[in-house]
């Protein structure tokens, strides 16, 4: 009964016309997303155009009108249409093996990209020469409460951005007080006013090279009694000190730290240029890995086009700083990183089969 209603609809989705619509929509979203990068930067445009279900147009800040399906919607539409084609359109004959393989490849590619966009996590680790790190930093923010009065131990309690930006009261078992975010500024700078600070809000940065300096207005509570409020920023020059029950705590907003079950030490960083020019020839970082859990202790060389995969993460030479004494590695965790390889293998094989058949026909035709 249901099948009878669904089937003509799926048949429609499997039609070549609908395929053309999917391709056309994809082209439009890609063009839009590319042009928007001039203003929004690659990441900004990606969020709005490709990592979204709908693309909004906002003529004023309060108004948001959906004007185009986002990349995720188009991807899903395409998948549904392809899936339906497997049932209603494709003929399973020996002549069409290439074509079928190609389309299976596209399904894998689309699913892989959808999963990557939702599951993949990018972070980075910045190390100066000789420095040892046991954490990487993600693009998200956290509000960290660091107990500074006891420098021997590393008492840190952090609140993820998703929680503190919503104005909820947060209490953590490790903290003697609870805290509430009264206000949050995406980009602001703190100005000294007498003994305290006031935030001056700045327009949010959207480009790739600039970054925001967030500020949170936080109130601390001992039970229900307020201890006062503080402006917490991301600048290490403006830390907020709080003394409570004989301990000193520092409040700071910083990139969210993800702790690793092993440590990395930067032993050497090399940045070579071609003689007589400023053109970089190569970058490389010599890292020492210490993983007591897996009993691993060895040196690793990470350089351009040669990432290092370990424990589900891949480390890439991304950048450098401080006169070549600091190396910045990009760290990517993508559980489905294999899918493009599988799908491109399938598609290349399929297309090769299909087009060789065509080419033979094409060469024969004129005679």
């Amino acid at each position, binding site marked *: 009964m249901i099948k009878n209603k669904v089937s003509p609809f799926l048949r429609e989705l499997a039609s070549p016309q609908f395929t053309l619509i999917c391709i056309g929509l994809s082209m439009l979203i890609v*063009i839009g997303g590319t042009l928007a*990068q001039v203003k929004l930067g690659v990441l900004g445009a990606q969020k709005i155009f490709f990592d979204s279900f709908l693309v909004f147009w906002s003529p004023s800040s309060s108004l948001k009108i959906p004007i185009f399906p986002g990349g995720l919607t188009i991807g899903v539409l395409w998948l549904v249409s392809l899936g339906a084609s497997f049932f209603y359109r494709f003929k399973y004959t020996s002549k069409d093996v290439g074509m079928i393989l190609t389309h299976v490849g596209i399904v894998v590619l689309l699913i892989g990209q959808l999963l990557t966009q939702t599951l993949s996590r990018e972070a980075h680790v910045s190390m100066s020469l000789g420095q040892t790190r046991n954490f990487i930093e993600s693009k998200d923010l956290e509000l960290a409460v660091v107990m500074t009065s006891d420098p021997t131990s590393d008492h840190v309690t952090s609140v993820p951005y998703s929680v503190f930006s919503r104005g909820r009261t947060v209490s953590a078992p490790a903290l003697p007080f609870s805290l509430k975010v009264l206000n949050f500024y995406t980009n602001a700078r703190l100005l000294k006013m007498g003994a305290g600070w006031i935030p001056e809000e700045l327009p949010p940065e959207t480009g790739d090279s600039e970054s925001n300096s967030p500020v949170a207005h936080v109130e601390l509570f001992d039970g229900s009694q307020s201890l006062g409020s503080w402006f917490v920023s991301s600048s290490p020059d403006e830390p907020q000190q709080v003394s409570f029950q004989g301990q000193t705590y520092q409040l700071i907003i910083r990139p969210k730290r993800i702790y690793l079950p092993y440590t990395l030490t930067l032993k050497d960083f090399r940045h070579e240029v071609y003689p007589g020019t400023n053109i970089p020839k*190569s970058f490389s970082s010599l890292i020492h890995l210490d993983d007591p859990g897996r009993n691993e202790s060895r040196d690793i060389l990470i350089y351009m086009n040669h990432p290092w995969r370990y424990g589900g993460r891949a480390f890439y030479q991304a950048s450098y700083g401080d006169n070549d004494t600091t190396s910045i590695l990009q760290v990517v965790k993508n559980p489905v990183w294999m899918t*493009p390889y599988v799908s491109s293998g399938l598609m290349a094989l399929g297309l090769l089969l299909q087009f060789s058949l065509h080419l033979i026909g094409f060469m024969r035709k004129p005679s």
Partner: protein
Amino acid sequence: MKKWIPALIVGSCVLTVLAGLRQPPTKNGPDLISFGKLPSFYRGRVMPMDSIARTSLLMISGTQVLRTPTGEKSAIEWLADVLWDPQKTIGDPLFEIDDPDVLGLMTIEQTKRRRFSFQEIQPFMGEIDKQAAHADGLDVSQRTRFHNSILLLQNRVVLYQELGWASLGQTLMLGMPSSEFPGWGMPYITMGNAYRKGDAARFNAALEECAGNLSQSVSKKTRLAGYEAFLNHVEPFYKSMIIYVLAFLLVSFSFLGARQSLVRAGFGLMSLAFVLHTLGLVSRIVIQGRPPVTNLYSSAVFVGWAAALLGLGLEWIYRKGIGTLVTSIIGFLTLIVAHHLALQGDTMEMLQAVLDSNFWLTTHVVTIMIGYSSTFIAGFLAMGYLFRRAFSRNPDIRGEEALETMVYGVICFAAFFSFVGTVLGGVWADQSWGRFWGWDPKENGALLIVLWNVFILHAWNLPKIKPVSIMMMAVFGNVITALCWFGVNMLGIGLHSYGFMDKALLWLVVFIVTQLAVLSLGFFPSRQGAGVPSTTPNSSDKPRGRK
């Protein structure tokens, strides 16, 4: 009688090319041609003095030959003067200045004269430096034409001074690790002294000593540098560009008469141009020790080469002249683009670290360039289809079907290569920064070409869509490919942007407008069959089912 016409045309062109291989030796003067072959280390790579001369002159004045009031100076003659007798060059009309405001700064009215000497510029150097420093501090998006021009002029003066005026050969000698080039030292100084005094015999003796030293100590580099200097002299790309035009003209005239012989002559010339094009391409691979495409310049050279190769293949199968006609235009256009890109500097410059991977340059870049190339071929074939449909009264259904088959075949080819190339690019990106796909403008551009070719292939299977619409889509493929190839660089963003061009934007727009104009021919009713009784089916507007 007509049989020997093609042989005659092709034969004379071959002879002209062969004659151009010979380099006339210098008579009673310093042997600057041999000097031009000496290897040196400049801008990060080993290159012959001749290449330093040509690249520098090209970057400063936009030409490879300097026209002075007393006569022409070749690049190497100019360089010898700059290195050893710079006083002689300060009056040469060297610096190309197009901007009226920059000229105004030097109280010069803009006339037809476009090149100015160092003598004329020198009194204003303080002001030029001041203005350039101001322009340099501006954000790129805020710079006006004046700012860009003053920066360019300052760079050119610095380049000129670097070469010799301020620091007599310092750059060359300093940039040259003496351990790598034992043999330059003393003879080089002797050469300079002898050159200044006009003592050709001593100059040549020192030169010979220097060359002898170098060919002993660094024999491979010396040989390659000598070969590069020879290649500079032969100018294979410039010559094949001209021969592509000749091939195009011959085949175009074939539509007026003497069809078979002219088509055959066109094929012959096309092959000759291709041989020269290949010579240049392979030589660059040998000299650089790199795959053919390493920068925007070489991408243009390669796209033209691949198009010519495919065109010869099409012509071999069909023998109708259309393969030659179409790919000779692409060969010419891409080489002229390359010719202008060469103004930006050394075309064999070293590669940024991230690009330094011969494996990926070979697989990803070459594949994607074949994709661009074949998309252009399909587009230009479709242009031919639209022209015929609009202007030829001669109904030729077989010819039309042959063109449709060709376009279909080429688009399949283009779809395959652009797809494989794009995926390989993703694999490279995954290897180098952990992201198979990052929505980078260049990636998106490649994706658009794939999507468009796939769109056409799927549209082909719809009986509702007429062949003429498919052809219009194929022409639009030219627009998309041009935008993705060059337009993306003009966005000036993203990890892949390897060159920003100002004037190129204008030409890109011109190209797109012409493509759209040709495309719009498809909107008009076909002229074929006009004047023929209406019982003849109007072929091109008749829908027909395809496989």
